């Protein structure tokens, strides 16, 4: 779906991106992970021509993106920024209607679509006539996402989409976004420096340093089969938590009946929540494992 080939970008004498290539399949979530200045944002911005590469090309659906004019290209790609970038002089409703306006949608269609997104993103209808400054950080981020989803673009580029939020709001909104049906079918490329976020959101992670890809692969591959010491060292601090997040419950307990996407971390949270509560009603009678069994299975899996 998206293919980047040998991208190079220099700013003056410093090389921000130095020969990056990757491919993203339709419906996949690729996370560009790395510390500040590693070139991940520059890479993202080359995908919708906000930055033109010095060398290399980007293909979307097999077509070189330089073949079409940049404005038209961008209208077909959703773009979500860290500081949401809402227009302060537009109301929420007007902000959401910007891209449809550029594409000359009918008013009724805009209204129908924005009502739909308001509902899906848990935004109160009364916010439509508010200006962005009257909204909370979480609400602003939802509006920013709604704006990028309005014309239902197949591709979504997200630049630190949760970066401006506090940790609690962030974890909540992340979970919510992950479950959003609008996002499930989309091809998403997301930039973050937050390792936990990368593991939660990414099908694959592209770990970058100094303008070069260090390793690209599934979270489990990066964690358990690092190609070099940089990759191994990068996850060291939060290793255990990341392991829980990267291992699927289905791999751990082949016979256990569970959702395909549920990770060990998800199951642990579920079980811990239950154990805090003494009430029998919450604890389903058919639950066959406890936290202890889960941990045993995990260490068995790791040592296998």
């Amino acid at each position, binding site marked *: 779906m998206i293919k980047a080939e040998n991208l190079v970008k220099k700013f003056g004498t410093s090389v921000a991106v130095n020969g990056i290539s990757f491919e993203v399949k339709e419906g996949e979530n690729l996370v560009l992970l790395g510390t500040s200045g590693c070139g991940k944002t520059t890479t993202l911005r080359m995908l919708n021509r906000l930055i033109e590469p010095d060398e290399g090309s980007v293909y979307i659906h097999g077509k070189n993106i330089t073949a079409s004019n940049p404005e038209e290209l961008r209208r077909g790609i959703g773009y979500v920024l860290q*500081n949401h970038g809402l227009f302060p002089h537009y109301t929420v409703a007007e902000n959401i209607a910007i891209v449809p306006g550029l594409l000359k949608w009918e008013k009724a269609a805009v209204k129908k679509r924005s009502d739909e997104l308001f509902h899906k993103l848990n935004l109160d209808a009364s916010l439509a006539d508010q200006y962005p400054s009257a909204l909370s950080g979480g609400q602003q981020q939802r509006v920013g996402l709604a704006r990028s989803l309005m014309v239902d673009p197949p591709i979504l580029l997200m630049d630190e989409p949760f970066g401006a939020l506090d940790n609690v709001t962030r974890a909540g909104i992340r979970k919510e976004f992950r479950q959003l049906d609008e996002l499930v079918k989309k091809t998403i490329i997301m930039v973050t420096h937050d390792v936990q976020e990368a593991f939660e959101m990414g099908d694959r992670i592209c770990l970058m340093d100094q303008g070069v890809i260090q390793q690209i692969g599934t979270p489990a591959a990066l964690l358990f089969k690092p190609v070099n010491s940089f990759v191994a060292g990068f996850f060291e601090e939060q290793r255990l938590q990341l392991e829980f997040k990267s291992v699927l419950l289905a791999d751990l307990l082949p016979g256990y009946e569970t959702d395909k996407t549920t990770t060990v971390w998800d199951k642990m949270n579920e079980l811990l929540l239950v154990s805090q509560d003494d009430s029998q009603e919450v604890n389903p009678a058919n639950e066959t494992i406890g936290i202890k069994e889960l941990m045993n299975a995990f260490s068995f899996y790791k040592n296998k």
Partner: protein
Amino acid sequence: MEHTQSFWQFVDQQSGKLWSQTWAHIGLTMISLIIAILIAVPVGIFIARKEKFAGAILGFAGVLQTIPSIALLGVMIPFLGIGPKPAILALFLYALLPVIRNTYTGIKEVNPAVIDAARGMGMSKWQILSKVELPLAFPVLMAGIRTATVINVGVATLAAYIAAGGLGEFIFGGIALNNSNMILAGAIPAALLAIVLDFLLSLVQKVNLKSIRLTYLLLPFIFILMSSFYLLPTQIGGRMLGGFTPEFMGREDGYLGLKKIYHLGIETVVISDAVMYKSAFEHKLDVISGYSTDGRLKAFDLITLKDDKHIFPPYYAAPVVREDVLKRYPELEGILNQLSGLINDSTMTALNYKVDHLKQTPEKVALDFTVAHHLFKPARGTTKGTIRIGSKIFGEQYILAQIYKILIRGNSDLQVETKTGLGGTKICFDALTNNQIDFYPEYTGTGFLVLLKPDEKTMTRLNGDTDGVYKYVDQEFKRQYKIKWLKPIGFNNTYALMMRREQAQSLHIESITDLTKHLNQN
């Protein structure tokens, strides 16, 4: 002239003139402002894009701002002549800086994340400018326009100096004529104009713009621009044009007398003394109101027309001194009187010529003169007290002040301080009565008509009587102000109508009566 005329009576009497001046003032301000906006906003946008030009362009506009307004107006006369054109250009230049700077700042202050989002969503550069940058920069931009408006309303008063009309005609005429009502009739509407325009623009500033549609925005501007041209004084249709100072325009022994006694019907514009002679020389004006001893008469080859019906009273120069100063320093009177009888009309014209045309300093001209007449003595350098000499703002007065300075320092133990360049008769005279200066050279005619304002009877009685006028002013100044007129210096710097020598000769005009006849024939 009536002594008791109230401000409202004046306004009522002059309402026609007041309206036309106010409209001309609005016209000058608006035209220059709109042209400035049309140019400064794109320039501001340009330097917000191309940062490397920002310093140079803002610096240049800043330098323009620091040029004194009257100097800027003067510089433009040779290129644009006189009238509204140079005034509009000068006002335009003054309005540039605030508008450019605020456009630039306004656009620079737009949150980069918002621009980034706009680009990322696929807005074109033009859409980003008109829907994001300009609407968000609009309050700051408007603040710049408001600043420019207030500046322009103020500076536009100076347009009266170069025959562009406006409320400055009343203000400067009033200062020159010692007529407070006239000053206020110009100053109050000018102040109100600034306040009202600023208020109206503040309403515009609060408008929340979603996007700036250029055409909608330009329409009212173009409408105002077009209509503004009708507000300006229309002028000059092939006939002769007179350019008179604001002071001359309002005086009985000036334009009013010319109309009453000679029935002179000439198109006139109001203009500053500083640019009047040059404008005549450059054929921008045909008849001007000059002073008979002015050095520029010689420099620009102008001749004076004979005042065959005697409307210009004698203007013999003499120092006017407060009596308390003479009491404290009795030696002063004798020292100042040393100059009496030494300077006649042609001597004064020659001295003025050196300053006005040969650009010698008044100090040097005064020194040369005192040396040549054996009046020079080295300064004693003692300090018994300080004498403050005032002078009006033209060359002749500067020279006289410098000569007196040399005389006092050489012949007494007094120190001297000069306060030259006091803007007009009223300013000089007020400085004298309020003990800001101790004496200054004044002219009998000015003292008689401008400061004392005698009744009709006295004026008729003393018409053409040189000694009579001198005695009358001396006596009345002593009585009313305790100020003494010392002996006349000798020259008569009277008002005179002047024309270019070649034009006067080819039309056979020698006197004001000839001029009237010529104008009536055509």
